[in-house]
């Protein structure tokens, strides 16, 4: 588990108390789920970048700040969705400014090194560049480069039911902290790609077989990786023809960024963005059954932020 020093605890307690007072709920401990909504969205690219930064910062601060998750000198793996050769406005990859903000906050919390990468579904050179994530993350100080084929190691996935052994990217396991920065989008087979589905990006091998039992394999992965912090970018949501997209008419503005410590709860909330219930997502149901988190995200008294 992560360590929390006294000052950070104090700071997060104060901010959480402030939020709790603001939202009218008396709760001393920082919440484990925060849902940030942007009040005044604008279609201008600069405005969206600003929105992404402010939402991300607010959502993480509501959880007690990055200091709750990252300590001085740690190596942090940030896992955005860089799955496709698509521009940010096509909403197939995580918002680059959300990613960059997470990277910045990691460094502000004292991280020694932040690594940002993904094993995309198409050519890495194109998706890293087109998504804008490589440029934004690099500018924020992260090391963002394509995965190295040598570093996929066959690992035993403890507690797994389907993929008991699989090729996993070594850096993603050997880091001190894992932060999942997913985007919410449509996916025909699993109905929605959210944070747990995003973990497929640290796998190699014949991962296209996962579809044959997507619920269990994603639960296997989620139980193995167990990110300390989960961010869900729902600023732009690809509502159809996902996960690739490409048609701007399929992209809906939701102007939401979610931060949480419970990946099942984050995805359970994410389901509602598509008019679904958590119970409609097989992997979320499976995740709760394995004790990875709760589908009843409301029970976590999420901090609802208007930014």
């Amino acid at each position, binding site marked *: 588990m992560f360590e929390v020093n006294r000052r950070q605890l104090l700071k997060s307690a104060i901010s959480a108390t402030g939020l709790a007072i603001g939202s009218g709920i008396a709760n001393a401990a920082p919440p484990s789920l925060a849902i940030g909504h942007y009040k005044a969205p604008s279609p201008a690219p600069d405005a969206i970048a600003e929105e992404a930064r402010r939402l991300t910062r607010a959502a993480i601060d509501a959880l007690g700040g990055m200091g709750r998750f990252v300590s001085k000198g740690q190596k942090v793996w940030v896992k955005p969705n860089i799955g496709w050769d698509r521009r940010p406005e096509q909403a197939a990859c995580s918002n680059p400014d959300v990613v960059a903000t997470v990277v910045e906050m990691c460094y502000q919390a004292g991280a020694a090194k932040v690594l940002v990468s993904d094993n995309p*579904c198409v*050519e890495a*050179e194109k998706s890293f560049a087109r998504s804008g994530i490589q440029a934004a993350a690099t500018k924020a100080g992260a090391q963002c480069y394509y995965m190295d*084929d*040598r570093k996929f190691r066959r690992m035993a996935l403890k507690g797994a039911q389907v993929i008991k052994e699989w090729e996993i990217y070594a850096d993603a396991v050997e880091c001190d902290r894992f932060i999942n920065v997913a985007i919410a989008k449509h996916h025909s087979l699993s109905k929605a790609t959210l944070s747990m589905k995003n973990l497929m990006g640290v796998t190699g091998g014949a991962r296209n077989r996962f*579809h044959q*039992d997507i619920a269990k394999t994603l639960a296997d992965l989620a139980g193995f990786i167990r990110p300390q912090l989960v961010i869900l970018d729902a600023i732009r949501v690809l509502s159809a023809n996902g996960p690739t997209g490409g048609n701007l008419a399929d992209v809906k503005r939701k102007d939401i960024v979610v931060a949480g410590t419970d990946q099942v709860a984050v995805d359970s909330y994410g389901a509602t963005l598509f008019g679904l219930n958590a119970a409609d997502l097989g992997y979320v149901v499976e995740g709760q059954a394995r004790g990875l988190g709760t589908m009843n995200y409301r029970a976590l008294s999420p901090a609802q932020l208007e930014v």
Partner: protein
Amino acid sequence: MARKTRTSRVVWLRRAVQTAFVLLFFYLFLETRDHPINTPGRGVTLFFRLDPLATLAAWLGSHAVPAGMLLSLVTLAVTLIFGRWFCGWVCPFGAIHNFFTSLRGARTKEKLDTGGFSNWQKTKYYVLAAFLGAALLGANLAGWLDPLPFLFRSLGTSIYPALNDATVRLFSWIYNANPGVGAFRVTAVSEPVYEVLRRHVLALHQPHYFGNLLIGFLFVTVVALNLVRARFWCRYLCPLGGLLAVVGKNPVVRMKRNAEACTDCRLCLGECQGGANPQSSWKPAECFYCFNCQSDCPSQGIEIAGARAPSWLRSFFHPPKPERLDLGRREVLASGAAGLGAVFFFQTHPLGAKRSFNPALVRPPGSLGEDEFLSKCIRCGECMKVCPTNAIHPGMLEAGLEGMWTPVMKMTIGYCEYECTLCSQVCPTGAIRPLEVAEKRKIKIGLAYFDRNRCLPYAYARTCIVCEEHCPTPKKAIWFEEVAVLAPSGERVTVKQPRIDPELCIGCGICTNKCVIKGHPAVIVSSASESRNPDNGVLLETNDPYRQ
């Protein structure tokens, strides 16, 4: 025999220039990749544009070449003055042959006995005549032996992948074994080196090409032949050398042997690269202007110069003793006719006659109609090297014998990246015409179909639709129907059975590539419906930019 003199400065200069061109060639080779997004390195086609054979062969068949290819006229112009300087100073393949010739351990006596002109050296002219004969009727075969495409293709599809593999294995072995002494680990040095190599020299993913063995074997063979004869390829086989020899057979700058100083020691012949007989009657068409003869002459009896200014001009307009290649009219005509005649056989093959289309012959987007494509493609392998997914391979017989080593897409290895036009940007002859991304997205290179006997939701009642997930068209060309089917357990399960919308499918093949069934995937792209060959069309109406 006289003592060997010191290597002259002009020979060192020539070696430096050759090295520079080889390095430039390798650099441009490595630059034939994506600089994200969708931008190949600059000037990567330079050497093909300097190649008059590629230009001539493409022009003879198609009567059109990109303006950039006219750079090869510069090569020809210089050849008029300096003869086959290109072979001796510029050609990177020539330099490689030069290098391997220097490894030849033959004794001086053997070199002197085998170094002179042989009538077999005329072979290259007959090869040239045959290629040009075929090119006249639209079969551009010159790329088979044109040295620049030969070198690039061999490097790209065979040698480089092998070297890349060897390098990665070496560094991976160090990385995994992590040897060291005390606190020092070898990886502390090897990993930073590997990272630099990975970014600038190595391939992002290990490339694999069908046909690499044959291409590699031919390459190694012609290089090894230098141990039999100095610059074997350049002397006997090279059709570009043949063309430059025909054009430059009466060069202005010539070798002169000072008969008074000459002691007939024949040392000049020993290191003569072209078999140009410097010791007796010099043959300018075989001379590479390597200056070895002059450098090796112990009595300074050889001069290579345009002489003094007045005679320089004189010799330009009235070349002394017009050279004859003595090829024999009959032999040349027969070679040309052989090339020409072969085309009739190609064209009466069912594929050549367009009576049928090979479903496996899927060409890169922007490829011209098959006849025009074959008249222009020089099989250089630029498209194969630049393709970021390793989808483009040197074909074997997919397009008939005349199409050997032309680009064929193998979707089991790679796929056509939706937003990518790299191959169309690097094609030196326009066989793959330049494309804008917006147009490329709509070009059909083929049409996918399902093999329902293999596809999981059809044949085995299992969920999958990985194909649908990856389908890149904004409105997916793969759709599905939810069907309740009987599972082996006896239960009824609902699965999503994928289908193709033939209007939307562009044949990119990512479905094939990502299909869980390897080797013979359950979804396959055939060339049917390809935009470039209207006769191979399927649909009554399409939104195809070629057919509007």
